[in-house]
């Protein structure tokens, strides 16, 4: 319980202090200046006709999707290995428990 209270106190302290120090604050002087959020891309527009690309986006896209599926596959493989290993160990331990009870 003490660890939980300490973690919560630390959490609130960090939550309150870090944004305060890191915040750039509102823009001063220029009344028409954009805020930090407004300066960024805020819209994705669909293309209407064929459009040439300078960097081949297809390769980057394919790599990204391959990464997603490869990582998911590796995770599932690891999970399966873990489950199999635990099941075998549980079986072995149960047999040992039964053997020790029979003695």
């Amino acid at each position: 319980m003490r660890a939980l209270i300490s973690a919560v106190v630390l959490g609130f302290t960090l939550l309150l202090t870090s944004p305060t120090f890191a915040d750039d604050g509102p823009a001063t002087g220029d009344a028409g200046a954009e805020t930090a959020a407004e300066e960024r891309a805020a819209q994705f527009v669909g293309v209407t006709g064929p459009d040439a690309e300078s960097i081949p986006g297809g390769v980057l896209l394919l790599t990204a999707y391959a990464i997603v599926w490869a990582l998911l596959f590796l995770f599932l493989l690891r999970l399966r290995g873990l489950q199999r290993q635990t099941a075998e160990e549980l079986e072995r331990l149960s047999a040992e428990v039964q053997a020790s009870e029979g003695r």
Partner: protein
Amino acid sequence: MNIRARQSGNATVWALLLFATLALFGVTLYMVFVVAPVEKQMGIVQKIFYFHVPSAYAMYVGFGVSAVGSAMYLIKRSPKWDALGVAGAEVGTLFCLIVLLTGPLWARKAWGVWWTWDPRLTTTLLAGMIFAAYLALRSMGSAGEVEKRFAAGLALFGLIDLPLIHYSVQRWRGVHPTVITGKGGGLESEMYWALSLSFVAFTGLAILLIWARASAERQREEAASLRFELMHR
């Protein structure tokens, strides 16, 4: 309800969720690659967005579940909450890795660089590092009570970073796009539907993975307590 009936019910819910998630992924892929248009400025590479953003959401789900499981473990000291904490941290880290690897591929085309110390990128990396530390701590042999409690505290510390990731694009200067906002997104209708379906599919996937991993962790705990019992006979 007896244990066998509950297990059978769980298996049915699991199978239904698995089927629904797989079907949703099929529809999502069709929406992303066939229905949603190519983005005017970035071209086809913008389609990374449909897996990158929902992966970030699944990361929030994983880390959030880990923090809840950890908090409950610190209060109740029940192994089932600890298992949930571990499962959430692992699944959250998996999706964090996906976010941190797919993001740079999009950034190379959009910003001309693989990585920049933008507030959202930096805070996401920080969350990944906190939960990687959690997993490293838990993987040191069979974790004892002290390690489990310390790891639970670390998960709660990691939780603080999640709102920082979310609000960093609004509060601090950076280059990360803000197409999804409370005022409505800057997305065309087909893009919006592809993204929405992807969000649901990734949420289903995150729940399935957390469920499976928590179940494996509970079995591992069971084996450890059986081993302990045998050693002290």
